[in-house]
């Protein structure tokens, strides 16, 4: 289940769930966090710590295992930083400790049921704008991690939108959305799509409007789950959707 478990649309955050006494809640919290963060963490370890792919895979899975075992989320203080900044620093700390201990990480643990497409993540790294050979500044690392986190969040939202469209028999809507927003064709237009699908332009407009609205709703709901507080959620929403985005 690559997109992680979904929770009812009530106010809920991974931090709250991680602090709950219910082990099932805790596990679901970790699954949600894992779904959103495993790729950014993997890529970050590869680039920031310059680890080979196999080591980075072990470290990624080991980090999330440690997150659960040491209940790192319960130590998170929203007054001091954003959750993703905290997690990134935990990753740094974890990797440094592993270097000192110089032993291989456990594989899996509570998260083995999630299929991790490390080769795909490795392929995505090829397009990274950060130069692994250079010594990156803290700002560029933070930017890189933020960008990958947004990428992961959006990918999850797109996937959920796809499922939603399937459930509602709106496959064509999703194809239109995919072609317009995801394919990367700079010359794409509503008229072209209307011609391609032999439908009126107004249908294309309406379909894309609906799809964008749903995408935004889904992305924001996902974002809310992985933010600790309302304040953080508002700030992150501006970062994700506003001009602050990298």
């Amino acid at each position: 289940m690559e997109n992680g478990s979904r929770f009812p649309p009530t106010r809920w955050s991974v931090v709250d769930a991680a602090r709950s006494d219910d082990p099932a809640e805790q596990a679901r919290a970790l699954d949600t966090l894992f779904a959103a963060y495993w790729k950014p963490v993997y890529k970050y370890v590869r680039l920031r710590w310059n680890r080979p792919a196999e080591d980075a895979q072990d470290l990624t899975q080991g980090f999330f295992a440690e997150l659960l075992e040491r209940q790192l989320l319960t130590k998170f203080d929203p007054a001091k930083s954003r959750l993703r900044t905290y997690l990134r620093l935990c990753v740094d700390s974890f990797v440094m400790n592993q270097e000192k201990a110089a032993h291989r990480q456990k594989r899996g643990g509570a998260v083995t049921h999630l299929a991790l497409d490390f080769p795909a993540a490795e392929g995505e790294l090829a397009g990274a704008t950060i130069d692994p050979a250079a010594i990156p500044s803290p700002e560029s690392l933070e930017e890189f991690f933020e960008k990958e986190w947004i990428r992961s969040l959006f990918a999850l939202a797109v996937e959920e939108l796809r499922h939603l469209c399937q459930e509602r028999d709106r496959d064509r809507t999703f194809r239109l959305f995919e072609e317009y927003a995801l394919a990367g064709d700079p010359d794409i237009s509503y008229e072209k799509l209307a011609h391609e699908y032999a439908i009126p332009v107004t249908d294309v407009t309406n379909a894309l409007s609906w799809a964008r609205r749903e995408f935004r709703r889904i992305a924001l709901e996902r974002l809310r789950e992985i933010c600790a507080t309302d304040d953080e959620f508002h700030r992150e929403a501006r970062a994700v959707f506003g001009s602050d985005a990298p």
Partner: protein
Amino acid sequence: MKFLSDKALERLREGADTPDLAGTRYRLLERIARGGMGVVYAAEDQTLARRVALKVLDVPIPGGVLAHRLNREARVLARLEHPGIVPVHDVGTLADGRVFYTMKFVEGQRLDQHIQTVPSLPDRLRLFLRICDAVAFAHDRGVLHRDLKPANVMVGAFGEVLVMDWGLAKILRDSVPAANPADPDATIFQSPNAQPAEPDATPATAVTGHGTILGTPGYMSPEQARGDIAQLDQRSDIFSLGALLCFLAAAPGQAVPPMRKDKSLDAICAKATAAAPTERYSSVGELSADVSRYLDGLPVSARRETIPEKVARFYRRHSVPILLIAAYLVMRVLLLIFSRR
């Protein structure tokens, strides 16, 4: 899961952020700026065939208490009909639930840009008095601005001065009946559990709701910087006005070095920006009256003059007749001396 390229990310973000104005009478033209609490776009009002500024409040999740309060805020602001306050034309809700409002599209310059073309200190102070007029009017209607700064004042093409961006405004007393009588809060951006902004928050990100620190560093009153929302009143805006006054007096002009303020103007700035609210002017009217007195060469309430300073001010105010009378007397004395020789 499909990989999203950077281009796709950008398109998704833009697509999700760009307001969908279908069902409204507006047509989106271009994005102008990000202000406090939202993004401002230029749009066309297709009914009246005029350009408007359309602000979409970026509160992410639509509906609920927050959207209701924002709506109410827009209605209150729409009643601030003053030539110095940018008028609100319309308020509505987008299809995705985000609240928007439209206001007059101001073509002009921000004050911090415009002031560089105003070398004369008296002219700058007269600009300041017009800003005070607008703020005093709002205070009289029970509305605080809370984010007064040069970037939030526009000078239009015809010299009109407009105070903008009331997105952080606080309503001290509500002249608009609440749709929900049970709504207890006087402010939109307040929560019982106010949390301080995180250390790495930029001024833009510090400007959020829900009890976090609101305003802009440098122009924010100390009580506002502390997040002490309960203590905010018109004196917080007076602090900001004082900081604005200092900026106007000190900002360099075109090929003009920063102006030397004299002690009276320094005293006005100091009083307006006093750390304790009790030591500031108690109203915008008092502040603007002092600035007017300064412009007229009269003594200001912020400072007690020494006798030499009073004499010097009297001389400056009446230098022409004093010199004429002195010339007459000197001439008389000289004539007397020469006639006796």
